[in-house]
């Protein structure tokens, strides 16, 4: 959020972000939805520990090993570390605040950058030196030979080609907590991996869209004139093409062999969903550019890029935050619809719902998938409403 700090006053060093956070903490709906979102993210990231075929601990011939850590992909490690660092961020800031305060530097920015640096270094070294193991079906077949094996909650083959047809269409039981599908696939396992798709789409696609919208909107609102006219026309063009059609056509153009289907969808949804952020940021900057502090900053001779980056854009981020929260809900919706229509090939809740639609009597399939979509979309909408009320109830988003 914005790091407009008012340091120095007697007990008045509350940032804008801190004020909004204080408002949010008073709302139970906000706290509950935030908790559910963190839980969903955790479940998505830790999916291999909950459902999968690789044991967590394995003892054979007296030798103890932890196979799952050899199997986790680099991307999974990166996601785990990123999530942990994001959760640690407020804690670190609080710990360092006193010292930073004495030294006269703002806390947030440096801590955030340090975390980002740690994450980038670990990610690069992982990609450069680590090769994850990939031997499907290895441990499940040899489970009898082990002296002790801790399998995930749902010990089930996750090789896409592997199906156990004799277990197909079973109602929920202790072996299959949410039952099995048409081809003997475990529903819980698919829900967990669908959560990964939904979370990736939610965060990355909306992140791409927000970034594009903020940059273009800031330029349009600040410079005005011809820049504004041209950017407005471009935005109108994107608004006037029906969203789904644009996405389908863009999918045929971008679907290259080197890009996994999930990332194709993420990029396409990001590239076609930035117009809301553009409109909000443009409106904010039209207001902000004539504020006194902007005039003062201009009079100080601060270069334009710095003016925009440090003063104008951070002050216009509040509506963007609300819009992005609603945007995540919308993107999850959209991805489910695309998968439901069979337009994308990702492990997704929408695809499961489409499967379940063919055989409604196996209610556990569509009920799990539909419930998961509903829950995710609902908590994001709830959080969006709460943030909007905390920032400014009259905000029209």
């Amino acid at each position, binding site marked *: 959020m914005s790091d407009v700090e008012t340091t120095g006053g007697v007990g008045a060093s509350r940032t804008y972000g801190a004020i909004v956070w204080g408002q949010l903490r008073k709302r139970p709906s906000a706290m509950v939805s935030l908790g559910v979102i963190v839980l969903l993210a955790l479940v998505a990231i830790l999916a291999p520990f909950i459902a999968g075929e690789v044991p967590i601990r394995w003892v054979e011939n007296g030798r103890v090993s932890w196979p799952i850590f050899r199997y986790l992909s680099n991307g999974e490690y990166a996601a785990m570390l990123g999530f942990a660092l994001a959760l640690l961020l407020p804690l670190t800031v609080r710990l360092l605040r006193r010292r930073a305060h004495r030294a006269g530097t703002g806390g947030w920015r440096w801590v955030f950058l340090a975390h980002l640096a740690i994450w980038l270094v670990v990610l690069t070294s992982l990609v450069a030196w680590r090769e994850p193991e990939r031997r499907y079906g290895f441990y499940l077949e040899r489970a009898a030979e082990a002296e002790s094996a801790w399998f995930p909650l749902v010990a089930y083959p996750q090789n896409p080609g592997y199906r156990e047809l004799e277990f197909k269409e079973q109602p929920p039981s202790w072996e299959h907590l949410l039952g099995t599908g048409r081809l003997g696939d475990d529903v819980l396992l698919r829900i967990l991996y669908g959560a990964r798709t939904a979370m990736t789409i939610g965060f990355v696609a909306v992140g791409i869209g927000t970034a594009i919208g903020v940059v273009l909107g800031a330029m349009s609102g600040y410079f005005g004139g011809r820049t504004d006219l041209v950017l407005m*026309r471009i935005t109108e063009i994107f608004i006037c093409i*029906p969203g789904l059609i644009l996405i389908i056509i863009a999918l045929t153009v971008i679907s290259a062999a080197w890009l996994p289907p999930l990332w194709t969808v993420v990029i396409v949804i990001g590239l076609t969903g930035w117009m809301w952020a553009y409109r909000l940021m443009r409106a904010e900057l039209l207001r902000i550019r004539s504020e006194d502090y902007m005039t003062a900053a201009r009079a100080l001779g601060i270069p334009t890029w710095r003016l925009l980056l440090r003063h104008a854009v951070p002050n216009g981020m509040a509506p963007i935050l609300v819009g992005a929260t609603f945007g995540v809900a919308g993107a999850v919706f959209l991805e489910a619809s695309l998968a439901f229509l069979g337009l994308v090939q990702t492990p997704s809740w929408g695809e499961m719902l489409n499967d379940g639609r063919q055989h409604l009597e196996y209610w556990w399939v*569509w009920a799990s998938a539909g419930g998961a979509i509903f829950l995710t979309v609902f908590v994001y909408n709830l959080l969006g409403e709460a943030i909007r009320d905390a920032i400014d109830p009259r905000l029209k988003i």
Partner: protein
Amino acid sequence: MKTYLAKRFLLMIPTLLGITLLTYALVRLAPGDPVEAMIRAQAGDINPKVFANEADAIRERLGLKNYNLWGKDPQKIDALEKVVNVFYGYGRWMSHVLRGDFGESMKYKTSDGSKSPPALFWERAGITIPLNLVAQVAIFVIAIPVGLAAARRRGGFFDRFSTIVLLGLYSVPSILAGTLFIGFLGRGGLGLEWFPVAGLHSSAAEGLGRLAYLKDLLWHVALPIACMVYGGLAYLAKLGRASLLENLRADYVRTARAKGLSEGRVVYHHAFRNSLLPMITTMVMTLPGLIGGSVIVETIFSIHGMGLLMVGAAQARDLSVIVFGTLVYGAITLLALVVGDVLYAWADPRIRYE
């Protein structure tokens, strides 16, 4: 006002050109060959030489042909040539459009055999537009009383209850709602079999009288319309609530109360009337989006409307249908934006456009 409108309409021209050029270029530049896919789907494997000739003729007719421009190897067309071809093809498409010819569809035909995109859309519009209008009216009729009741007792039980229920409804994906409707109310095999689940008419509908025909139609569209209505409720009810609250705080309401008008008259005659206009404006502005967005409902209930036509065309890369569809949709959206702005100014004389 006149100058303002003229300026708005003039600014539509570059936007419409951009819309058509963008879709045209994307469809043309996408890898793969839609004509080949179509011929294979129709005739299976045929003699390659016959195939090549036929494919070339079809491409020529549909305006999809990539011409060999610098004439070295007629079999190979490089990337730059492709781009030049896109602009050339777009120019040709434009010159045809100016003469009233929108090309022909690769995949679709109307019931009387016409392949021209306008005819195709006109036929489908007869299904999609009435359906959406009925859904819009239903949304309006339900959402306004709800918003009104919530605003009158702000923070009361009904206010909080309706907010959370509406947000919940808003969060139910239409793919789930459609599935549930079919499963429990339609002939999906789970519960009550009250409603049919596909199409718009019974097979014997032709022989029915006018009244029975209408009844049959309503019986068929009840579930799709319910599917379109439930999600839109939340947005409009919330807007109505906020708008009425703002008006109830206004000075003129205090004046009305002070001069001793009854509470009902203050709310319904003064505040409500003023809060209705922003809602109508919003409806006008969102209507085109709803028509384009009913694809999911049309798919679930097998209704052959405009949304399904557009999605089918986009998947088959049926160039002329896609470009015509985006042109029409874009024009309607732009018009709706202008109408919305004008309505806004008409309702509130403080707003002036120069």
